[in-house]
């Protein structure tokens, strides 16, 4: 579904992503794990078109994303739930969800809203509330719900557990599993490596802009080097 081939991304003179290649197949959960600053978010931002790679290619559903602007990539069926949630704080919950369906025909908005409310009953209770008044966990649910409003074929989640209480982290991962069961392909970026690997089909380990290990979720969980570096021994 998604094929990333040898991308190099720079922030000015800083070489942030160094020749990274990976792929996500239809129906998989794939996770990118790594320490702070390893380049996980940079990769997602490059895939969705907010940043550009100097080399290589990114193919999504056999289409080269090369020069397609970010707002057009969404139309192809890719939704990105960015790091730090970035919900529209001054808009209501429902308006946020409507923005998620911006590229969708009007007729699909209501059924999609129902589906998202079904998935996140809390959002339904608060649908007229301004997003800025929601708790962190609720904002994360809103960000995920907003991403789902475009009926994405590929959902990219950037640190969905960041800053959340452990009980909420469990909830978020339950939701990720449920989405996966319903057939959504997911690319998950996480610092919480143990959680991420336990739900993922496959994972890639990133270190200072390079992929240093890859395998199934189980393999990486048992890998000695990964254990030492990311799973606390």
């Amino acid at each position, binding site marked *: 579904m998604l094929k990333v081939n040898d991308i190099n991304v720079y922030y000015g003179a800083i070489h942030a992503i160094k020749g990274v290649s990976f792929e996500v197949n239809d129906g998989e959960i794939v996770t990118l794990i790594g320490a702070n600053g390893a380049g996980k978010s940079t990769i997602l931002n490059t895939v969705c078109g907010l940043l550009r790679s100097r080399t290589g290619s990114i193919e999504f559903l056999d289409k080269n994303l090369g020069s397609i*602007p970010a707002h057009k990539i*969404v139309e192809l069926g890719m939704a990105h739930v960015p790091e730090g949630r970035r919900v529209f704080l001054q808009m209501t919950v429902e308006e946020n969800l409507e923005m998620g369906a911006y590229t969708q025909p009007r007729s699909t908005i209501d059924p999609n809203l129902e589906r998202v409310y079904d998935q996140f009953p809390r959002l339904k209770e608060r649908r007229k509330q301004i997003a800025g008044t929601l708790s962190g966990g609720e904002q994360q649910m809103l960000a995920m719900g907003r991403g789902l409003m475009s009926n994405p074929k590929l959902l990219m989640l950037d640190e969905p557990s960041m800053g959340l209480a452990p009980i909420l982290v469990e909830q978020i991962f339950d939701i990720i599993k449920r989405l996966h069961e319903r057939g959504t392909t997911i690319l998950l970026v996480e610092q919480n490596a143990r959680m991420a690997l336990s739900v993922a089909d496959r994972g890639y380990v990133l270190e200072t802009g390079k992929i240093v290990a890859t395998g199934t979720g189980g393999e990486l969980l048992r890998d000695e080097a990964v254990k030492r570096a990311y799973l606390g021994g």
Partner: protein
Amino acid sequence: MMTFLTNLVSGISLGSVYAIIALGYTMVYGIAKMLNFAHGDVIMVGAYISFCTTSYLALPAWVSVIFAIVVCTALGVVIEGLAYKPLRQAGSLAVLITAIGVSYFLQNAAQLIWTSNTKVFTSVVGSGSIKLFNGQLTITVAALVTVAACIIIMVALTLFTTTTKMGKAMRACSEDKGAAQLMGINVNRTISMTFAIGSALAAIAGVLLCSSYNTLIPTTGAMPGIKAFTAAVFGGIGSIPGALLGGILLGIIEVFTNSYLSSELSLAIVFGVLIVVLLVRPSGLLGKYVPEKV
């Protein structure tokens, strides 16, 4: 008492013009995060277009208003596309200086085309007036039309930003352009659209302003532009109701100072009030501050 009422009416009317201009500043600032100092000069262009349509082409006043709106809308989009869009990634200082450059460009272009001689602008709404309280209180039709236009524009814009898809997309862009792009919103088109709306409003403001003051020179838009900018900051830049409140208050303060103190002091007091408001409430009267959760 009647002087007070007369002043109040003309203050509200002048304030309505400031409010309409301030909307242009505030919307552009809200979405493009830039101060478009050429906005005041778009007002002047609108007034000249209306003037030419009625004086040289002898077309009716309402046609001249539509002409002015069309020309200014196009002008706003062209200015944004040629002058500001290439600077999207540049620092805000570069954009600010460019805006000042565009402002001088428009003033000088107007001087080339229309010369610096004062044109007598005939009010587009006639020179009629209504007398109340046995003729003690006179309200001009121009003042009434100005206030009515301001109310209609406010209601229309509020409905636009809260109920239409494009309007909501604008609010999304004003909060977070990156996240808006991730929703599939074309940010560049949204910014152009904002300039189009702001410039259309500038055309209306120009015609209304000159209908009340009847004179027109290439720098006509400069001072009202700066005052309206003050009004926008005063009310809380980025906020639509703030532009209305700031504009009306500024108009009233200005007229009352002119009438009761002295016209020399009016600018000093207007800007003095701004300084006080900013010291007490840095985000302006209605400026929003929503704490971000981390």
